């Protein structure tokens, strides 16, 4: 997502559907129609390979040069009972010839691999949209499983849609009859048949997928060829059958992107790369202590693949040991990280408090998911903000950094590392399920552009006693940053003991002195409050009279995409609205209070029950209006646009 670039005011997704259906066919052969953007949703059973299908379509689209944004949506169960509503897995992809910000509110093409997928997704599909259904699955039992008494393909209930009935299973089996596969084996390639069909419909390049399939099934060449054959058969079916009269072109989004080399990247991958880059830029070995938890595990998986970067990954016995080991490695001079989600943060809280007291650098990566408790493991939410902010005993301030888009997870990881290393403190990196699994194009940075994160370990005495003796004081602070020296074991003469008991200022020795405790609590707070974070810049384009907006929308984290898309729509409709988006939630940017005071109305959309709004009200006495959604799904741009318009005209 290339937010820097100006973009046409976005139209609603429903309007897109009309565009796709607009007639204008003339001449021989199949018509090719140009579109500026498309939203496709692949939906099927958990075992149908919808995530893979979506990933492949995304890769094809990325290599074609469209801007894109994705929303994988899947159940927590690995294989929920086949054909049931809870077992439906889907993948939505929005791609365009200009820069876009969200995976789209509503698909204009739904691929439904079975009755459950149709039923679970139909409510999101605007009338007039195209629906491609696998008719082979619309038999009595699968339909009965989801409560269809009559076939929706025949009873007229889909009359408002442009339905393409395709016997995907039969066609796939037919295409693979020479492979000598069992029916069951052949059937499994039906997702590739569907991918081939959609690739034809939208003129996607196919080489990448064929290469991918041959690599994925390198050890089973016949399965690889079967999948390639199914994929090609899907393409050819589109080209041949009369049911698909039109195909669509969405031109590359060349103008939307600054010059550079691009790739597609998901939030968890970008975050992993950010951590490796931070380790490289700090010239410190990366140490990850982690315990598997959805949706954070992919970072553990990814980092464990890069041992040749000197990355140590430790899969601990529990969440507490994950962060404990990371803290131990930090004491030893590593760039230490622990990755988790909300329930894991709860378990790590005591160790985060210890890290606050020890004043050692430590990254705590929280890929937020729906809560409380186990909640919704595979769905997104932003409800750990106050846990990150306050979820410890005592006064234990921790800086918080939040990425705003999948690709931004890379920069956010570097920024969190900067703060941790400079100020010798644990830092929260608050991503979420939507960023973690969603993907978008990313301009690959030049290594030379990356910040220098090198640190200086303590190497000798830093204090002179009254009698002239040179000593090392582990809690003697840097006057500028208030950071204490990082003296790692192995450094002669700096042997020292640190712990969770209150320490005497300077010496770090145990101290129960009341005045000292008061001083230390305030000093630790002052250190975090004094962290350098950039001022926020308000996006508030003045109108012809030089007049700015009266209403400000303020967000944080992954709501950036939908909020910005909604702001564009509101502006497109002729209204004025200002926007700011926070990356640093603790400390907040110094100019934030002044910015908030400039506006009559401040709207704060969040995927929680108003946690940031609570903080803003407390800190700035501002009447922040909270707009909240906790459905486990990201905001839809159109709904937000309505909320903003209402607020403006309120």
């Amino acid at each position: 997502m290339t937010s820097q670039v100006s973009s046409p005011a976005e139209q609603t997704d429903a309007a897109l559907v009309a565009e796709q259906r607009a007639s204008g066919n003339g001449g021989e052969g199949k018509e090719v129609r140009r579109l500026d953007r498309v939203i496709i949703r692949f939906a099927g059973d958990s075992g149908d390979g919808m995530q893979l299908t979506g990933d492949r379509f995304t890769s094809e689209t990325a290599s074609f040069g469209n801007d894109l944004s994705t929303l994988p949506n899947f159940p927590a169960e690995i294989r929920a009972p086949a054909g049931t509503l809870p077992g439906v897995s889907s993948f939505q992809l929005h791609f365009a010839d200009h820069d876009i910000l969200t995976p789209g509110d509503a698909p204009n093409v739904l691929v439904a691999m079975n009755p459950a997928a149709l039923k679970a997704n139909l409510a999101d599909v605007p009338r007039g949209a195209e629906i491609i259904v696998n008719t082979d699955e619309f038999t009595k039992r699968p339909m009965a499983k989801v409560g269809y008494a009559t076939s929706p393909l025949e009873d007229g209930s889909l009359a408002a849609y442009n339905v393409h009935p395709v016997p995907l299973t039969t066609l796939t089996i037919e295409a693979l009859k020479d492979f000598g596969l069992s029916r069951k084996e052949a059937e499994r390639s039906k997702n590739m048949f569907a991918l081939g069909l959609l690739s034809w419909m939208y003129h996607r390049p196919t080489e990448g997928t064929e290469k991918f399939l041959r690599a994925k099934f390198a050890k089973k060449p016949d399965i690889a060829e079967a999948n390639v054959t199914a994929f090609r058969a899907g393409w050819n079916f589109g080209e041949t059958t009369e049911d698909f009269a039109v195909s669509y072109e969405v031109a590359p989004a060349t103008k939307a992107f600054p010059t550079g080399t691009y790739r597609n990247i998901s939030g968890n991958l970008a975050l992993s790369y950010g951590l490796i880059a931070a380790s490289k830029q700090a010239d410190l070995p990366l140490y990850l202590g982690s315990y598997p938890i959805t949706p954070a595990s992919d970072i553990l998986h990814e980092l464990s693949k890069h041992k040749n970067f000197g990355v140590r990954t430790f899969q601990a016995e529990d969440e507490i040991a994950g962060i404990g080991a990371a803290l131990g490695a930090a004491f030893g001079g590593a760039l230490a990280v622990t990755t988790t989600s909300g329930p894991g943060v709860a378990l790590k809280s005591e160790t985060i408090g210890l890290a606050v007291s020890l004043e050692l650098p430590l990254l705590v990566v929280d890929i937020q998911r729906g809560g409380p408790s186990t909640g919704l493991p595979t769905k997104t939410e932003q409800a750990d903000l106050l846990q990150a902010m306050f979820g410890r005993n005592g006064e234990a301030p921790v800086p918080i950094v939040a990425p705003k888009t999948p690709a931004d997870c890379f920069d956010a990881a570097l920024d969190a590392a900067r703060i941790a290393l400079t100020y010798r403190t644990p830092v929260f990196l608050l991503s979420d399920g939507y960023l973690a699994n969603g993907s978008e194009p990313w301009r690959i940075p030049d290594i030379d552009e990356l910040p220098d994160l090198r640190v200086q370990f303590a190497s000798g005495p830093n204090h002179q006693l009254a009698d002239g003796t040179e000593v090392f004081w582990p809690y003697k602070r840097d006057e500028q940053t208030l950071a204490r020296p990082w003296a790692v074991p192995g450094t002669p003469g700096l042997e020292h003991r640190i712990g969770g008991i209150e320490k005497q200022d300077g010496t770090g020795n145990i101290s129960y002195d009341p005045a000292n405790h008061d001083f230390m609590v305030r000093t630790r707070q002052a250190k975090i409050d004094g962290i350098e974070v950039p001022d926020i810049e308000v996006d508030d384009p003045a109108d012809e009279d030089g007049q700015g907006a009266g209403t400000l929308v303020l967000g944080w984290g992954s709501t950036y995409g939908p909020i910005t898309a909604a702001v564009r729509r509101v502006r497109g409709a002729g209204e004025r609205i200002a926007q700011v988006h926070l990356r640093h939630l603790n400390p907040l940017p110094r100019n934030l209070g002044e910015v908030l005071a400039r506006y009559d109305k401040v709207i704060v959309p969040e995927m929680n029950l108003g946690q940031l709004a609570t903080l803003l009200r407390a800190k700035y006495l501002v009447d922040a209006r909270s707009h909240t959604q906790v459905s486990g799904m990201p905001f839809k741009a159109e709904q937000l646009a309505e909320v903003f318009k209402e607020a403006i005209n309120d």
Partner: protein
Amino acid sequence: MTETISESSSQIEALSLVPKADAKQSMKDFKSDQEVRWCPGCGDYAVLAAVQGFMPELGLAKENIVFVSGIGCSSRFPYYMNTYGMHSIHGRAPAIATGLASSRRDLSVWVVTGDGDALSIGGNHLIHALRRNVNLKILLFNNRIYGLTKGQYSPTSEVGKITKSTPMGSLDAPFNPVSLALGAEASFVARTVDSDRKHLTSVLREAAAHPGTALVEIYQNCNIFNDGAFEVLKDKEKAEEAVIRLEHGQPIRFGAPAPDGLGSKGVVRDPATGDLKVIDVEEEGTGGVLVHDAHSPSPTTAFALSRLADPDTLHHTPIGVLRSVDRPVYDTLMSDQLDEAIEQKGKGDLATLLTGNDTWTVVG
């Protein structure tokens, strides 16, 4: 199972990456400037003195030695050692030490913990550290009571213990730390007693030389809340009958001396059950007496030995090294994987990583 190796080669592997001290060290080099604040008469003083006295023998650069502790009386230990140290949070020392030891193989990392710290709140970390065989030396001070919280029963207290939290007696059966460690795949397990400086030092020596996790249970007297808990093992007369001193390669004999100079009691295998039992060698002869094999690949006999002790009376308590076997060390394996990855893929190049395989270029 791996084969056992001699102690001398273990020593080389366990400590070979830790730099040596430039000059000869003395006990006072290891004393910090902090006032020791245990209760007068506490068994912890003896252990501290033994550790400080033994450290110079290792001859390691003291800046490469780290003591990590949890919470409890014994966990104040690191403050008194003039090395690097961390007094962490309750039960988590093995986890923290694992991160340190697995990222810094040039350090000699020691964990100091107690029966509550290691076996209650931190039980999970203890067993997993043992299973992994990280290069850690764990000193478990067992006083069979909670001292710092002023006298509640602990997971090693005998059943029926009357304490502030159990006025009618505790209900739960205790852990035998040695049995627990053996069950957790420990490669080195030993037991010693705070008051026996010589034995304590000899056990520490073997633990230090062991590559991997070494667990040393130290029976330690809390003279305030559980005074005399180990008296039976310390009183000269009673100890003769109560303590089974294990020495590798020696027959397991104890008790008042028999005519051959060794103890009049011996440990034999009961042919009927396969279990171990204590016999009077003067009545039954010495033929069946087991010779202690700390290096036996199977932990079965060590476990059976650990079960001889009566949890209430402590009669037939084995002390010494119950098990010491060579097993792959976690931090070595972790480090080897890094080397192997570099060998296979070359040293990581950030630009190549970020670029990946599927890119497209936008020209202005």
